[in-house]
């Protein structure tokens, strides 16, 4: 008997909030993504790891529609959203580099986002208090330090209590205290049933946060599964060791 399931029930069944299907992207002569298939499971933290230039940021930007993939499909909650705009209301994005219009204040920037999202959206201002940003938000963004900008960057990602958080190197430039506040926030959001995608160069940090790992190598998914499964497969005790083992194995295969 052939089972006919529509995509929505399929997504519910697999528990995937996001499905990336055969995503491809070429920049000039470089194949940055070569047919990436990846499911991001609902209510879990997915860490995307891989060496520099493996395509992590391109993958994230494709998911957000900032980069236009050459081929493939992005499916959110069972519905294809490739090339559309409205779905981004469900995503909070924290880019790698926090640079803003220099002459606006942080408060203006936040009210601009609120203005764009409309009155209906929920608000989560917890990080403003936790980071003690009250005064900084009243100053023009150009006078703020890199760390403070990064905090505002984080505030913006969490501001609308989005279903999906996409954090690209979120703790870069943050002091240990702020970075632990941010990590606590990520775990709290996961506890509330939200889904998180995170990249970082600091493996120990991902180890604290991640449930699942996607290992991106040369534009392909070399491994996708739970953190424990990755450790099991490579026979290593930590994510850092496991990632190193994956890279060594890939180098051997290439040779």
């Amino acid at each position, binding site marked *: 008997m052939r089972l006919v399931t529509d995509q929505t029930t399929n997504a519910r069944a697999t528990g995937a909030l996001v499905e990336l299907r055969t995503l491809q992207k070429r920049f000039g002569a470089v194949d940055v993504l070569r047919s990436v298939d990846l499911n991001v499971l609902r209510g879990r933290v997915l860490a995307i790891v891989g060496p520099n230039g493996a395509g992590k940021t391109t993958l994230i930007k494709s998911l957000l*529609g900032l980069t*236009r993939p050459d081929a493939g499909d992005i499916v959110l909650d069972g519905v294809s959203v490739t090339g559309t705009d*409205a779905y981004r209301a469900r*995503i909070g994005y924290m880019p790698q580099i926090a640079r803003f*219009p220099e*002459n606006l204040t942080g408060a203006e920037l936040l009210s601009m986002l609120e203005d764009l*999202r409309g009155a209906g959206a929920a608000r989560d201002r917890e990080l403003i208090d936790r980071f003690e940003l009250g005064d900084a938000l009243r100053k023009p963004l150009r006078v703020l330090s890199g760390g403070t900008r990064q905090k505002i960057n984080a505030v913006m990602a969490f501001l609308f209590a989005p279903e999906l958080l996409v954090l690209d190197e979120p703790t870069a430039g943050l002091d240990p205290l702020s970075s632990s506040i941010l990590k606590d926030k990520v775990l709290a959001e996961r506890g509330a049933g939200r889904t998180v995608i995170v990249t970082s160069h600091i493996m120990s940090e991902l180890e604290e946060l991640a449930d699942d790992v996607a290992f991106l190598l040369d534009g392909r998914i070399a491994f996708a599964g739970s953190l424990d499964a990755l450790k099991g497969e490579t026979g290593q005790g930590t994510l850092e060791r496991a990632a190193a083992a994956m890279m060594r194995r890939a180098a051997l295969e290439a040779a």
Partner: protein
Amino acid sequence: MTTILKVLRYQARDAIRSRWLIAYLVFFLGVTEGLLRFSGDPTRAQLSLVSVVLFVVPLVAIVFGTVYLYNAREFIELMLAQPIARRHMYGGLYLGLTGPLALAFVVGLGAPFVLRGVASETLPALATLLGAGIVLTCIFSALATLIAVRCEDRLRGLGSAIGVWLLLTIVYDGLVLFVLSVFSDYALERVTLGLMMANPIDISRLALLLRFDGAAMMGYTGAVFLSFFSGAQGVAITLTALTLWVAVPVLLGARTFRRKDF
């Protein structure tokens, strides 16, 4: 549409606070006030302002515009991560750049005249001067937008901006003069007119000089120009040429922007 206005509002707020834009405003205030004071004659001040407007407005619009848009790159990225359509973001960017530039120009050049009280005989020339400046701002910020969207490399982008300005301000007129001198044995009024129509700065220059009875000094050519600009067909052609100069770069830029990777 409302999204465009929202983007425009915040972007314009950012642009208005930029030091360069304030410097631009102060420059026109200073030059206009100075010319009015030293010449003591509003019409002569306006005539001097023609050259200043034709030279400075395109330069500032295209250079400031290109630099501003390159600096706004991360802001654009941030906005595009929001539920905003690219075409709305693009519209907001272009208008958020053009609006403050045009405003600074109009206030800078207009205020000294208005504060003195505009006489009815200097009003048409002032209006043409302001209109030409606004149109040139729209055209050159459109070119700036196109360059910034098309060209990834800032340095090359800035180089192209200055190149385009040099081409339309200086090189083009040189070529026209060359053509005219080579074929000076022929009646070239219509050809000249055609060549002028292809360059927005020349269109503005003609429209402005004819306002100041400068046509009388240009002999037969001036008479041809004057009859062209006073006829309905001439006005229609002029407006079409200017509209194309805004629309073509804006639409080409929009096409690239829609497909661009950030």
